[in-house]
């Protein structure tokens, strides 16, 4: 059957293509449409898409900057026609001119925006000079495969010079053939769709079970079933990975917030309610470093998150030491007083920051290493800002462990934690150890602030969000153990993430809290208890 169908189809396509090429592009009408109402703009967008697929090379070159200009609101419409505002060129003739006084920059509606995005990408795929730009354009087209105009991908593949990219274009063209009439092409399309499993692909493939070919053609049915089985498997793996990753990322946040507290609480039994505010100050110091770099060394601006590490640690450590020396030192025998004192410090710090910086969210640059993400498998997207927090937490964990286990300071801290009086007897300066440990704990909070700044909004109140969560982690983990903090953070993070999709975020919080209470009934000393001076 397909023997006689193919030539007819081909000739039809040829006719279509030649017909489209025969009608010259009415450039003036297109520009007028771009300046028209929502309906006209939509038509103009579709026309641009058509130019990308079927237009002559000159037309394509002429049309290339238009879609992008509309998206960026860079097209200024005046009485004459329109001006590409950024380049200062007339949209129609490309002669340099300035827009008129009453120029209006049309705003694409959401629906038109999607058409123009597609048209911009289609034009870029055909005529952008850089391979990178063409690749990015292909990525945009991949998002809406059903709306790619006929013939675009074939034409693009034919003129593509980069072999790798041509392969990608061919692959996309294959998936686009899912609804073609040739069963062999459809089976090929199924196979290439199944290579990138996602829920969207599954929806598309399972819709084919109601296709007439599914009942009549055995090969096709087998291909559909195989593809959906493969996609389902991919989605399951992706979901499992996503849950793990989300849990790990939440755990890293909890861990960063809690580790400083664990050291302070474990060593001195001081409930430091200002810990959240030290996190906040760490984030503010990061912002200050960023602002400093903006003026002093703009070329290093992207690396402010790394360069701010020592500053965030040292400033918060200094503040912690100052609090210890001026306030807490005198209150060690009165735990309730020290709790109230740190609460006062926390209110003081919030208000101080509010007066100095204001209440608005701080503006952070998003360097390339913490922006966006890569799809891995199924619907699992590996987001870089979360990865940054996870990596940062792992590094912090390693360093903290090294300090506590391998340095003389760590040895002293452990000795004082276990038995303060005995440690004092054998000549350990317990007061100095307290001070240093408080500084270490505060500095770690500062680092937490740094790690959280690409994820959360930074404002004077941000610290208050963390204090309850971090106490939960510390108490569950067993006061003052690093291992306990790690395990508790991982546990709480993972359980939260598991419960959230089932019963919602509100219930997740409640259930986790109830679980912790129940656990502490059974094991009041937490997961890992230190045998020591604690009563």
């Amino acid at each position, binding site marked *: 059957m397909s023997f006689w169908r193919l030539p007819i189809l081909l000739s039809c396509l040829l006719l279509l293509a030649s017909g489209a090429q025969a009608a010259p592009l009415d450039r003036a009408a297109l520009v007028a449409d771009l300046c028209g109402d929502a309906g006209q703009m939509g038509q103009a967008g579709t026309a641009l898409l058509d130019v990308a697929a079927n237009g002559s090379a000159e037309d394509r070159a002429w049309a290339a900057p238009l879609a992008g200009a509309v998206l960026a609101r860079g097209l200024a419409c005046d009485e004459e026609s329109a001006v590409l505002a950024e380049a200062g060129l007339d949209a129609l003739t490309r002669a340099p001119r300035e827009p008129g006084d009453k120029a209006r920059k049309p705003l694409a509606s959401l*629906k038109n925006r999607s058409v123009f995005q597609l048209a911009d990408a289609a034009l870029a795929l055909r005529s952008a000079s850089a391979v990178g730009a063409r690749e990015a354009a292909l990525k945009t087209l991949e998002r809406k495969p059903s709306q790619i105009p006929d013939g675009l991908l074939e034409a693009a593949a034919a003129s593509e010079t980069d072999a790798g990219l041509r392969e990608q274009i061919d692959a996309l063209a294959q998936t686009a053939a899912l609804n073609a009439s040739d069963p062999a092409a459809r089976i090929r399309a199924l196979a290439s769709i199944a290579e990138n499993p996602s829920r969207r692909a599954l929806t598309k493939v399972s819709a084919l079970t109601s296709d007439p070919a599914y009942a009549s053609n055995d090969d096709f049915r087998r291909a559909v079933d195989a593809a959906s089985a493969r996609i389902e498997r991919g989605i399951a793996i992706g979901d499992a990975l996503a849950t793990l990753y*989300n849990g790990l990322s939440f755990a890293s946040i909890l861990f960063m917030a809690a580790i400083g507290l664990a050291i302070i609480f474990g060593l001195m039994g001081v409930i430091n309610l200002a810990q959240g505010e030290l996190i906040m100050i760490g984030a503010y110091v990061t912002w200050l470093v960023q602002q400093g770099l903006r003026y002093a060394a703009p070329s290093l601006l992207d690396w402010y998150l790394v360069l701010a590490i020592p500053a965030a640690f040292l400033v918060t450590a200094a503040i912690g030491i100052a609090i210890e020396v001026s306030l807490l030192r005198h209150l060690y025998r009165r735990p309730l007083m020290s709790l109230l004192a740190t609460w006062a410090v926390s209110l003081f710090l919030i208000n101080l920051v509010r007066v100095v910086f204001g209440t608005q969210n701080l503006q952070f640059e998003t360097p390339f290493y913490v922006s966006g993400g890569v799809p891995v498998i199924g*619907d699992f997207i590996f987001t*870089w800002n979360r990865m940054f927090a996870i990596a940062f937490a792992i590094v912090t964990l390693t360093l903290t462990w090294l300090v506590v286990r391998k340095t003389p300071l760590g040895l002293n801290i452990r000795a004082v934690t276990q038995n303060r009086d005995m440690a004092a007897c054998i000549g350990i300066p317990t007061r100095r150890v307290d001070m240093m440990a408080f500084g270490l704990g505060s500095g770690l909070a500062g680092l937490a602030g740094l790690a959280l700044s690409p994820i959360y909004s930074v404002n004077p*109140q941000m610290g208050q969000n963390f204090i309850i969560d971090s106490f939960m982690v510390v108490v569950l983990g067993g006061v003052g153990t690093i291992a306990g903090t790690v395990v508790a953070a991982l546990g709480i993070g993972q359980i939260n993430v598991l419960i959230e999709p089932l019963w919602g*975020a509100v219930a997740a919080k409640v259930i986790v809290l109830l679980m912790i209470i129940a656990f502490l009934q059974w094991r009041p000393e937490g997961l890992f208890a230190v045998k020591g001076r604690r009563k």
Partner: protein
Amino acid sequence: MVKISRRSLLQASGLAVAGLASPAILRSAQAQSGPVKLGCLFSSSGTMANLEGRLNYVVKMAADEINAKGGVNGRTIEVMVSDPASDWPLYAQTAKQMLQQEKAAALFGCWTSVSRKTVLPVVEQEKGLLYYPLHFEGDENSKNVVYVNSPPASSVLPAVDYLMSDDGVSAKRFFMLGSDYVWPRTINKQLKGYWKTKGITESAWKEEYVPFGFSNFQTLVNQIRAFADEGGGQPIVVLTVVGSSIPDFLREFANQGILATDIPVLGLDMVEADLEGLDTQKLVGHLNCWAYLQNAKGPANQTFLKNWADYVKANNVPFSGDVSIDPMVSAYDSVHLWAMAAQKAGSFDVPEVTKAFDGLTFDCPSGYKISMTGENNYVARGVFIGSVNDKQGFDVLWQSEGTPKPVPFSPYS
């Protein structure tokens, strides 16, 4: 926080006793000379500080404008500012104090519906007058509250209608994500009722709530993606989270690579101030709906923006002079509406002022002539749909022809 509220509780209950003890006749015969007092109930601390804080200054600015023209009924206006610290019960206590002790002629305040609900019994009992500048869930009509902003019928529903129309994105499926309190729950209930009348089935929507101040949106954004990929038509997110959850949600949403052209977000509480500190390049196209947008056309808006910038500079206000949000304009309108009503009534007594509401009109900076009727205490406002641009602001995507008549009680709930 407990300590503050307890102290203020003691204060307030002490005041309440004092208020009850003083004969009622003394209250109405309050001092006829000296400035007339207006009270502000906006937090300068806590989660709402960044948003509510700026409204205090707008009220003061409006009062200054009125005073410059000779005040109201021959008396100047004095604005009292408080700090309820984003602590809902504290709003009620502060309101009580302002009405009983300071004899405030009118109160301007509250952002969240939960704070308005706590103040409501106080203003009703004390026969005060509260101007509420936020768009909200409706279903309330107290004669002691003036609802300056729009109920859902003239804010949320037109926006959702637009998104469902062919001009919008022909939305077919809806993911509702909100903070867990009365406003999001009521709005979503009404929306569901509305969709049912449009023949949309229950499988086309999903509803999720998060606690106040929630920031870890990773799992929820995953759920939204899964919901969108199920197919069945264009999905949208109706976002009713409030406060710092808004930027945190948007950041995660953009980071997972979702564009407005894939899944548009209709942020019902999203204002220009929420975009501060965000890279809006990847958020271009998301929507909000209010009765005013900073990019509204017209001379009234230009004047307002200039006055605000000048006021910020002259008075060292700790907020940006280049950002203007709907609740600011609504608070500004409130003060003028109150002054006009008091002038018309020739009195500051609440019943007299309330009687004067019928037929009031005011040229709002939004460019619309807003008006009140004798039917209820609602104000007819224009409707804007805004679209996020790459300069941390909103472009006007659509605006209503005129000011739709406000419908206090939704037929859909």
